[in-house]
């Protein structure tokens, strides 16, 4: 599941902090994301996971250091550039009021891909998610699971350097969730894609993550660094979740 140890990190965050109205909503001490990494942010509702994900994806302005492919992301223009090389899937699919095909093409078109190129890659992404037969459907004719597959296809179609997932399966029924987890892990492995996966579900975290960061609401609010557990092993036998040895070594 991991890329070669010599690969340069695609995303680096140091002392990244989202502050609104004088309150720290989320903080991260130091993280590196390598190509092929599936990094899980695990924590309770309100722990600031989603805020953190938005900061990492350039959707929210944040203090501290964020580097994407070796370049600092400090300006609005740099955040847009970051968003144009990455993709995000949220808990709700947020499909545009147009066909599944146009939805999947939309990210590519916004990034100025040629029409034919966008069509080709959208078709491939729809195929990959097993929903080629839904290409002409509008969102109101899709089930929740189908809509989320369209949303995931839309994210994968742009071939993102980093894929950000914010509770992507939380709104789906358990069978759909299980199938999608397996499919997604296969896709990530095949593409050696860097992934940041936010979830509140520790089973999901264990199933998908190479590395798991555990976020507690209190520590986030006080702006204390979150703890990072090295592996699933660490999470399975937590002596104390707040004091798992911090290690950024590759698992």
């Amino acid at each position: 599941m991991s890329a070669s140890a010599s690969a340069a990190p695609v995303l680096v965050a140091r002392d990244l902090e989202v502050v609104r109205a004088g309150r720290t909503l989320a903080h991260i001490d130091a993280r590196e994301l390598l190509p092929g990494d599936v990094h899980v942010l695990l924590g309770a509702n309100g722990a600031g996971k989603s805020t953190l994900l938005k900061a990492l994806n350039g959707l929210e302005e944040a203090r501290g250091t964020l580097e994407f492919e070796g370049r600092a992301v400090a300006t609005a223009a740099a955040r847009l550039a970051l968003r144009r090389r990455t993709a995000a899937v949220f808990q709700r699919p947020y499909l545009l009021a147009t066909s599944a095909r146009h939805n999947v093409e939309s990210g590519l078109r916004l990034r100025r891909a040629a029409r034919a190129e966008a069509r080709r890659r959208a078709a491939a992404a729809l195929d990959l998610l097993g929903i080629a037969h839904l290409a002409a459907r509008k969102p109101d004719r899709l089930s929740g699971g189908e809509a989320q597959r369209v949303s995931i296809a839309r994210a994968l179609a742009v071939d993102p350097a980093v894929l950000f997932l914010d509770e992507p399966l939380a709104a789906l029924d358990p069978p759909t969730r299980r199938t999608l987890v397996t499919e997604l892990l296969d896709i990530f492995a095949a593409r050696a894609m860097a992934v940041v996966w936010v979830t509140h579900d520790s089973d999901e975290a264990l199933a998908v993550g190479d590395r798991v960061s555990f976020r507690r609401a209190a520590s986030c609010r006080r702006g204390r660094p979150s703890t990072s557990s090295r592996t699933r092993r660490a999470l399975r036998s937590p002596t104390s979740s707040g004091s798992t040895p911090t290690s950024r070594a590759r698992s």
Partner: protein
Amino acid sequence: MDLIWNGIVEALRLLFGGDGSIYEIAWRSLWISGVALVIAVAMGVPLGAAVALNEFGGRRVVVAATNTGMAAPPVVVGLLVSLFLTRNGPLGDLRWLYTPWAMVIAQVVIALPIVMGLSQAALQQIDVGMRQQIAALGAGHLQGFVLLLREIRVSLLAAVMAAFGGVISEVGAVMMVGGNIEGQTQVLTTAIVQQTRIGRWSVAIALSIILMILAYGANFAMTVVQQQGRRRA
């Protein structure tokens, strides 16, 4: 009853008899309101979006003012525009009072709050999450704005129809700033008032029929666009 019946028959004769002056008045109504509508939409939609999508001090004051403007009496607008355009007024040097341009300005003032208020309300209905998703797809400011407009196109066309209905049918403002000058600033509504007042019922009815057809035709065209792709249950 005879009066009404004869009026209608005479009106139809005027309509199909090719009385050029009636159609000249209709055309003037259409272009004045059309130009005003285009200007109001070009200004009102971005302004509505700015209010809907941003936080700033005095935001509520702006929203309340816009909503009040949606119900502004045309005669008050007429007075306001007259004050600006009168010879000694701030814009008096333009010499626009009692010209079609004064009427366009008055109708922009009437239509702008309608377009602005309704597009702002529609944009505010869009989930913040959707806006975030659009940004995450890689949309810049302008691209995101265009995508959002596409999402609210049904409401947006309703706003345009409401504004068009408001300006094509109003009489107070165009009467005051245009002066109902025959062959120059007379439009359908002001002509209807005048013809009714002097008892030429048939002409008033003929003009009213044209006005209704214009209003229906424009709204029908926009409705066709609006209802495209509607899901049939």
